[in-house]
């Protein structure tokens, strides 16, 4: 939608507005608009993993993504194909490389606002906020998905993704045991500190969608977590959901951790370990989290049979 009204300027390094320059830009632009049905989809580069994840779920392969290798370690799925160029660090992508790829559009989140003046010399920049915005997280995710879909000119794929996710969540919700105690969602930073997820987080949005209660009612930051020592969890009565990966050595240290062993949930063996899901992800991550969470709560073996997880990915 957007890119048609603002035709991409193809030659960014042309000298400043001479008449000839403008003329050729206009001609190229007109040609491009005319030729657009024949052209492949808009070439998009993005610095942000959440946006990359969304693009892949819309079946649009980004031209370049920052820190591709780390994306595979932490976001994992949907995987990026080999054709995706690695742009370097998310905080400082390689501008020379990005310019040589000559993308039609660069997608960022408000987190990278400081880069905008530099990036906009290469291609039009669109900033789509998911995590640094106020307002309800789930509707924010849905809205961001629509925005991305519109930008890459695939609004119907966006609607499909949203619908698929909603159906998947509704389906796993039916599998939930009738009464589930409140949950405490934590991720270990080291043996004594955890991130506990609450308001504003992806996980919270999923819990609400599944009709589950989060035991953490304390404050959280814009990303939806709060960094606390283990002692902050002591007085809460809830099932502990530990989201992996655990930092190295933490599992061993927990065995000798007096406080951990005295926690009510640990003594009553109400601790669930979940496979890694990107904490600041988009709809695909939300769906994966919902499916693995419900599978763990209903004590299905997610890892061995593929169970709900596989079933969810397969249906389209």
């Amino acid at each position: 939608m957007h890119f048609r009204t603002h035709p991409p300027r193809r030659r960014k390094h042309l000298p400043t507005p001479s008449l000839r320059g403008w003329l050729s830009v206009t001609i190229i632009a007109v040609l491009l608009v005319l030729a657009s049905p024949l052209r492949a989809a808009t070439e998009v580069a993005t610095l942000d993993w959440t946006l990359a994840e969304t693009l892949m779920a819309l079946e649009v392969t980004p031209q370049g993504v920052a820190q591709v290798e780390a994306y595979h370690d932490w976001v994992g799925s949907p995987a990026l194909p080999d054709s995706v160029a690695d742009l370097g660090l998310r905080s400082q992508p390689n501008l020379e490389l990005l310019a040589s790829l000559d993308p039609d559009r660069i997608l960022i989140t408000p987190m990278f606002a400081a880069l905008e003046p530099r990036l906009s010399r290469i291609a039009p920049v669109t900033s789509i906020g998911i995590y640094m915005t106020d307002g309800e997280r789930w509707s924010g995710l849905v809205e961001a998905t629509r925005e991305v879909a519109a930008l890459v000119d695939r609004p119907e794929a966006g609607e499909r993704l949203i619908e698929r996710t909603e159906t998947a969540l509704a389906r796993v919700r039916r599998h939930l045991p009738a009464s589930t105690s409140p949950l405490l969602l934590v991720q270990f930073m080291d043996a004594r500190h955890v991130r506990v997820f609450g308001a504003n987080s992806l996980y919270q949005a999923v819990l609400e969608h599944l009709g589950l209660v989060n035991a953490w009612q304390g404050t959280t930051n814009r990303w939806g977590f709060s960094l606390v020592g283990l002692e902050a969890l002591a007085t809460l009565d809830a099932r502990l959901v530990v989201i992996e990966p655990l930092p190295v050595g933490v599992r061993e240290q927990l065995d000798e951790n007096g406080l951990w062993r005295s926690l009510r949930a640990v003594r009553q063996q109400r601790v669930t370990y979940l496979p890694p899901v990107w904490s600041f992800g988009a709809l695909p991550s939300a769906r994966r989290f919902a499916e693995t969470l419900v599978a763990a709560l209903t004590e299905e073996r997610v890892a061995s049979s593929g169970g709900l997880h596989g079933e969810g990915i397969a249906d389209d």
Partner: protein
Amino acid sequence: MTDLTSRLNPGRACGVLGLFTLVLVWLALDSQPAFVDALSALFAPSEGDIEQLVAHYSWWPRLSIALLAGGGLALAGVLMQQVLRNPLAAPTTLGVASGANLALLATTLLAPGLLAYGREWVALLGGGLAMGLVFLLAWRRGLAPMIVVLAGLVINLYCGALGTVLLLFHQEELKGLLIWGAGSLAQNNWDGVMFLGPRLALGALLAVLLLKPLAVLELDDDQARGLGVSLKYLRLASLALAVFVTACVVSVVGVIGFIGLAAPAIVRLLGARRLGERLLWATLLGALLLTATDLLLQRFSSALPTLIPTGATTAALGAPLLLWLIPRLKLGGSRPTTGIGRTRPAGRRLAAGLALALPLAMIVALHLGQASDGWHWLSPFGNNTPLEWRLPRMLAAGGAGVMLALAGTLIQRITGNPMASPEVLGISGGTAIALILALFLLPGAGQLTLIGIGTLGALITLAVLVLLNWRSGFLPERLLLCGVAITALFDAVRSVVLAGGDPRGQQIIAWMSGSTYYVDLPTALIVAGLAILLAWGARYFSRWLDLLPLGTPTASALGVGILRSRLVLLGAVALLTACATLVVGPLSFVGLLAPHMARLVGFTRARAHLIGAALIGALLMIVADWLGRQLLFPDEIPAGLVASLLGGAYFMWGLRRL
């Protein structure tokens, strides 16, 4: 204000602080069911009662570890300051903390299996290795204080730069270590106390045994030798003791800065003169200071959405305290002496060589580079788009290098302290605090807003420095202590922000490490022009700079207006630092390294020193910026980090040959 000195003495200060701490303990216990219950929780918690269990496994061990760690660090600080004869020396001066930090970072990434044996041991090993390197570098010169300090500085820089590179590229894997790096006192059982207690007791005992020989170090080297003391082994023993104590503390609770510097400094400011006195009162004061800070923090931070690590807050509370004390109290005039460098001055040929190398480096930096399909040398008639990206960065790197090198030369010559650098003066720290706060409190702020806020930060810091030092006539030692206090504040802000785990942390690290990434062409041209102009102007200072290091009486006898010259030079340093910081971030360390490197190659007279440092600074930054962009293509390493690694390597080699 003089009567303050007579009313306050170390004993009374400790008493007041001790009372305050007791009140805090009482308040904390009172919020629990009952005092008796809390006490019983200490020894035998009842199994089913979660509050008692939390008190037993968390609250009491935390209180004990705070007392132990604070005391230990202060003790190590006194020893360091005594042996190194430098009021800026701290337990971490010899690279223990940064060595431990680097070891933990590297182990987590490369050999995570080792961590299963316990983080403490990896940290101890890393700290020990760093110390070993420092001793190796300084051994030939009999562990002379000056050389030990310089070796410590460079090892710290080196480990710090390597650690930052790892953090930059593995933000997600290493986020847990940032909490350790900020010094969290949280405890979950008594293991930490059991580890630290006996080791610190041993350390304290050894310190008492060393009291008498150590007092000799207050004499100068020749007198001490006359008494038949082997200075080398005495220094080795006491430094090793200080490092052992520090390493134990750091390995258990992480990096707790500032207590080890502030407690001995405050005790000295309060009038403790003899070593025994200082050791006793500083240890007590350190223990109380850390405990009180931690109790206050536990009381007031529970409403925040993030954990505030205690290690970082000690600076936030200790720094204002030190700043408040500095103008009020008398300072002992022990003055460190500079003067490493060859006696044979460098010839014109070296300067000419440097001046030739500079344009060469510029040409290479502009033309040679990588793209997705390999290396390219830009031909003058081909596609010149990459120049659009390379030119601003090259100019900014060179300009910032010149400015920081000049600022560093000025401040090292004014203060006569080799640890002095633009970073230490606090101007960069102030600028950076303002910028970090702006980045976090005004999300989406544009570049112009940020530059404005950064400038404001620099101006406020300068105003604070001038206000606090006006009365004393800008005595170098006071000036540096003020700067150290402000820099400690900056470190506190930084580690709190990073430990909180906000995904924006990576941006902060990248910018702070001396990056030319954000510079556009107009800014770069201004920076480069300003650098040339200021370098031209700086030569008018060379008379002052030749005379001031001779000491105040000599200099004023030779007709130098001490106050005026110090004020003007300080203003120049502030201007240079602020400009450079806004462009490349606060932690590039070129300002520290370039003047030393210039001295090492033989630029000793003020004028030659200025020119040499400026040339080396520019060359170092340009080469570093280029290398940083090529080494891990497409990832970019900030120029400041590469400059630290390059300059540091040369510096170590130079130290070894001295």
